[in-house]
């Protein structure tokens, strides 16, 4: 007999306990069955709906963004495949080890990767998280060969914007960036979703809607890891339209090379219709850096560099026009009849208004000058006289006829208006009346007057095309091809200057003299093949008086040196190209800017193949 045999009392207690246990078990199972009843019968339809939406996902198919071409059809911007590295964290066993491996194979920053995973894994479980876009060939090869060792790693191919020539025309073309909250809420980007890349500036911005194309979509059945099981329905994306620019790729290259290492801007325009042939701003940036999110170091490199590479100086750089403005004063004077071209004045190098003396740039004066020589040799004293006779409001009136002081309409957002001062403006803005001396400074394009390079290009074009102010434009056509276009370039006239032909002819003749006569300030743009006309300008950063404190020009610190201007047109008799050039802190327009104009004209008119070849191979 074993010790554990039941005695009668124990047996009774056991039976009683077993009954209790049975009741507990029945109760618990009752709860479980009720739970199933609740989930499957009472709330079943809710879960059924959830399960439907769970397995059918809407997947976007991004359209190919349109290409950007130059005026001759050369591709400036296209798309190329980008190999992007994704990780599904839920499929990874040892995340730390994986990241360590990936940092070895694909140069992945472990810290940034962890941050991305942290951000994304909570919101999108079982969905691939992009850790690195655009793997290099080497990285891709390494990752692919180690794939078996990298569970949870996915490589996806996506089209990526490709700016073929890097910094080439970067300000004009613009760049892409992720759409932000404000833009999404603005209602202007109806087809965009968070995370989409949209044009943020330049042509990419202006033609965003056409370049973008229409998003396609697919109704796909997916599993929880996001893998496609089958496509249930599909809407094919519509690729974006191509944009053909008026830019001449080769001329643009010449312009950019001329500005290399300098700060400044160049605008070259067809004076007969406003087509922009080249538009360069220096320093520039590489828009490829922005695609898919710019990294911190590159961004800081751009923003903190101190010379604002993102700023398009051709549109938003505002400078006093210096002596270029004398063209306006001369035409105004002639038209108003207060300048007699034959009248001779004496320049002693200084002009007195009351007790204050206003200097001519030529210290010992030009001697006797009439209008023609005053323009050719850029005599300040002559124009002090004329400015005083005209008065500030007349000067302003004529300046505005050229479209100065307001945007050309080239780019309504990034473009600056410049400034043409008037008496009213002075009183409103500063609360003090206009001073007589300020009229003198204005007459030679200093003090408050501000212009942008693109305004200057339109301005000089108007002088030479018979007085028509064209809106500068950069798009030849938008569409699939030149024969299938949805938008075509048409010249837009924004104003007529309304000045008699004979007055225009007189000034044009003088501007030919600037380049071609012995004492002309723009002699360095001269060439034997065609007649170039132009005007130099020097916009003062500090006053002439202060400049004289320095022994020679070379002693002036760079940041105090004058900005050099040159506007030109060629051939003068039958203009085909107008250029406006500003070189920041370049010194005199004649020495710093005029030679660049010469290069551009030669390149564009096909006079000097060597300039072109040199620039293009760079």
């Amino acid at each position, binding site marked *: 007999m*074993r*010790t*554990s*045999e*039941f005695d009668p*009392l*124990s047996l009774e*207690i*056991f*039976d009683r*306990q*077993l009954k209790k*246990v*049975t009741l507990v*078990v*029945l109760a*618990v*199972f009752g*709860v*479980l*069955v009720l*739970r*199933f*009843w609740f*989930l*499957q*019968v009472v*709330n*079943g*339809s*809710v*879960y*059924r709906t*959830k*399960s*439907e939406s*769970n*397995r059918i996902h809407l997947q976007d198919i991004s359209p190919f963004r349109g290409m950007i071409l130059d005026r001759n059809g050369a591709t400036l911007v296209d798309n190329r495949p980008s190999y992007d590295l994704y990780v599904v964290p839920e499929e990874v*066993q040892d995340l730390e080890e994986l990241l360590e491996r990936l940092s070895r194979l694909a140069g992945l920053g472990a810290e940034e990767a962890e941050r991305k995973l942290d951000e994304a*894994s*909570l*919101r*999108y*479980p*079982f969905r691939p998280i992009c850790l690195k876009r655009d793997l290099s060939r080497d990285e891709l090869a390494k990752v692919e060969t180690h794939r078996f060792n990298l569970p949870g790693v996915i490589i996806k191919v996506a089209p990526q914007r490709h700016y073929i020539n890097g910094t080439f025309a970067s300000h004009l073309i613009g760049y892409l960036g992720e759409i932000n909250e404000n833009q999404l809420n603005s209602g202007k980007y109806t087809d965009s979703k968070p995370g989409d890349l949209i044009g943020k500036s330049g042509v990419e911005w202006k033609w965003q809607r056409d370049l973008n194309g229409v998003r396609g979509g697919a109704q796909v*059945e*997916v*599993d*929880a*890891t996001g*893998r496609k*099981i089958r496509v249930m329905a599909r809407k094919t994306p519509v690729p974006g339209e191509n944009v053909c620019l008026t830019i001449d790729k080769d001329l643009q290259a010449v312009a950019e090379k001329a500005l290399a290492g300098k700060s400044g801007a160049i605008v070259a325009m067809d004076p007969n219709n406003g087509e922009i042939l080249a538009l360069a701003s220096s320093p520039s940036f590489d828009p490829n850096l922005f695609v898919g999110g710019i990294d911190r170091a590159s961004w800081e490199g751009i923003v903190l560099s101190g010379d604002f590479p993102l700023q398009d100086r051709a549109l938003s750089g505002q400078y006093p026009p210096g002596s270029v403005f004398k063209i306006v004063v001369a035409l105004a004077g002639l038209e108003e009849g207060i300048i007699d071209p034959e009248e001779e004045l004496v320049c002693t190098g200084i002009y007195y208004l009351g007790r204050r003396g206003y200097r001519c740039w030529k210290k010992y004066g030009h001697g006797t000058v009439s209008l023609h020589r005053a323009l050719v040799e850029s005599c300040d004293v002559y124009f002090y006289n004329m400015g005083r006779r005209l008065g500030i409001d007349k000067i302003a009136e004529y300046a505005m006829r050229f479209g100065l002081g307001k945007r050309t309409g080239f780019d309504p957002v990034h473009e600056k208006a410049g400034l043409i001062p008037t008496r009213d403006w002075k009183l409103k803005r500063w609360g003090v009346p206009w001073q007589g001396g300020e009229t003198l400074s204005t007459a030679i394009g200093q003090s408050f007057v501000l212009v942008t390079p693109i305004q200057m290009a339109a301005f000089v074009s108007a002088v030479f095309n018979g007085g028509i102010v064209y809106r500068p434009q950069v798009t030849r056509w938008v569409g699939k091809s030149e024969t299938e276009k949805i938008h075509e370039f048409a010249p837009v006239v924004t104003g007529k200057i309304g000045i008699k032909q004979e007055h225009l002819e007189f000034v044009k003749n003088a501007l030919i003299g600037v380049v071609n006569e012995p004492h002309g300030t723009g002699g360095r743009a001269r060439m034997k093949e065609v007649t170039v006309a132009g005007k130099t300008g020097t916009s003062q950063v500090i006053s002439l008086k202060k400049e004289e404190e320095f022994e020679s020009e070379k002693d002036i610190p760079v940041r105090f040196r004058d900005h050099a201007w040159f506007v030109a047109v060629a051939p003068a008799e039958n203009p085909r190209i107008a250029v406006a050039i500003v070189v920041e802190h370049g010194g005199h327009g004649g020495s710093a800017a005029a030679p660049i104009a010469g290069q551009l004209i030669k390149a564009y008119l096909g006079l000097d193949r060597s300039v072109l070849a040199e620039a293009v191979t760079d």
Partner: protein
Amino acid sequence: MFDRRLVQNFDWILLLLLLLLAGISILNLYSATYAIRDVGGSQVFVKQIYWFLIGFAVFFVMTTFNYFALERLAYPAYIFTIALLILVLFVGKVTSGSQRWLSLGPVSFQPSELAKIAMVIVLARFFSEKRGYRGYRLRDLWQPFILIAAPSVLILREPDLGTALLLVAGSFSMILFVKMYWKSLVILVGSAVSVAPFIWFSLKEYQRMRILTFIRPDMDPFGAGYHINQSKIAIGSGLLWGKGYLRGTQTRLHFLPEQHTDFALSVLAEEWGFVGSAFLLLLYLFLILWGLNIAKASKDKFGSIMAVGIVAFIFWQIVINVGMVTGLLPVVGIPLLLFSYGGSSLISTMAAMGLLMNISMRRFMFQ
């Protein structure tokens, strides 16, 4: 030596229940892994057939000896198990962050599975000794407490919260069955509540997250609460009659996590609806009640308590898993007994069932 009564008393109902459950399990696993059949999924259900075959072999082996022998072997077996649990902490295979598996050449098993059976045997051995009829006071229970604490702590160290919890739940059910003084029970529960905060802080972050998201699954529907939500969607979308065999969309498309292991029941519920789920629950209920009947029929204390212990363990495993997949209890990662994929747990369950059969067959011994 062979007793004809053994054959006469063979518990056909228990065997039938097990065969029925095995059949449903294999059928369900086939569906659960149907979508991944091309990438090794088909091996899962084939393997499970083999596991069941081995399981039934173990089941029959467990009926061949007289369970009285276990009374003498109880402590040695317990100590052996503890040794294995210590060993696994040093030489165990690490899989997904925990160290639970011991490898013996080509086969590997979880000592924690063995611990469940050893626990039942050693507690049955302890409580079968004669005591007063009013039950146990705390001071009578220090030995069982140590017996329970040792493997629980070791398993918690692996870490395997689910199994540790199960071990404690099963063991305390046995203690409650053999009766405690009311006062002792109150003190025990009171002290358990007061140490709860300490246990809370000793949990791993992911375990805490699971408890937190269990209480508030809406807190993080795509993170830790994802498992529960997907499982509830799968179960609920089955409605009354289910989506049909091999037609579960949640299952097909892998929205269910661990759908052939811990969440195998969700697959069944999605495809067979409330009718299927209730039927499976009734089978389990019947298995438990039948086990209690075996306990009642047994004529000795050791066998009876052992039968109750086995029932307690299977009861808790079922409740914890069903509670988990239906969102009533935290996600603690315990497979559904005789139903989820997994060799180690299946073998230990079949061994326990064999033991139950053993007790059932020998209920005549004192007649």
